[in-house]
């Protein structure tokens, strides 16, 4: 999987490393900005109130 991505990136090793780093940052951004805020209320970790 990661090997496949690596092989399909253009450029030499340094450029590939740079692009990989950017890809990782994009993935982390999407997770923190969209995926985790969506997933969090679905998980039973953060209910603090008493209710019926």
């Amino acid at each position, binding site marked *: 999987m990661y090997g496949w991505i690596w092989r399909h990136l253009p450029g030499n090793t340094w450029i590939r490393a740079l692009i990989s780093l950017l890809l990782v940052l994009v993935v982390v951004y999407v*997770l923190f900005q969209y995926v985790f805020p969506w997933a969090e209320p679905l998980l039973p970790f953060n209910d603090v*109130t008493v209710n019926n």
Partner: protein
Amino acid sequence: MDGARSVAAKTDTDKGAERTGEAPPAPRRRRGRGRIAAAVSVFGELLITVGLVLGLFVAYSLWWTNVLADRAAHKEGDKVRHQWSDPGPGALDTKGGIGFLHVPSMKNGEVLVEKGTSSEILNEGVAGYYTDPVKSALPADAKGNFALAAHRDGHGAKFHNIDKIKKGDPIVFESKDKWYVYKVYDILPETSKYNVKVLSAVPKESGVKKPGRYITLTTCTPVYTSTYRYVVWGELERIDKVDSKRTPPPELR
């Protein structure tokens, strides 16, 4: 002797390199094994990815949400303070927050108090007073229970140190012109999340029988979960007037 052996080894590997360099057509059995190996390695990489994503989620819940919530609460708090010092034209905007909670034993400074306990409100790093299922009283009311909730972990974690509060500790609520000084008189370290009676105007579970001016702090327990609720009750001891310099009451000094 050693040198001779390494030379021999070298020629051996050289020969091996030459042999692979020629790239003989791989036999069919090896290609089948290669496919299985590829599938296993993709599965392994997926597992590693899941592990990393879960790790990131922990970082998000316990660190990043605090960063965001503290930032939001700071901004809102500044707005409230600014409005207090300079009301300007227009009516008082109560949507922003009604005041600040100071609990010295939690060692977390001031906590902005807003109306409501929905996650949108609490996620801003504030404490909310209940409107549902029980309508909380406000400190200024003659009788009733000022019932609050805030996060134990993440989103500012404003009640993280609720277990550090001991009986007799002060809880101070700061409004625009009054300091309401409460004294903790009972603690319920674990109760069901459906136990809404802890919020009643006269919270009998804390041992009181007569209507009075109470404060109730609720959050989840144990830490990092929300299986049970932790409850702290206090009763109003006195009300100090805010002076021109906003000198805090002795409990906060």
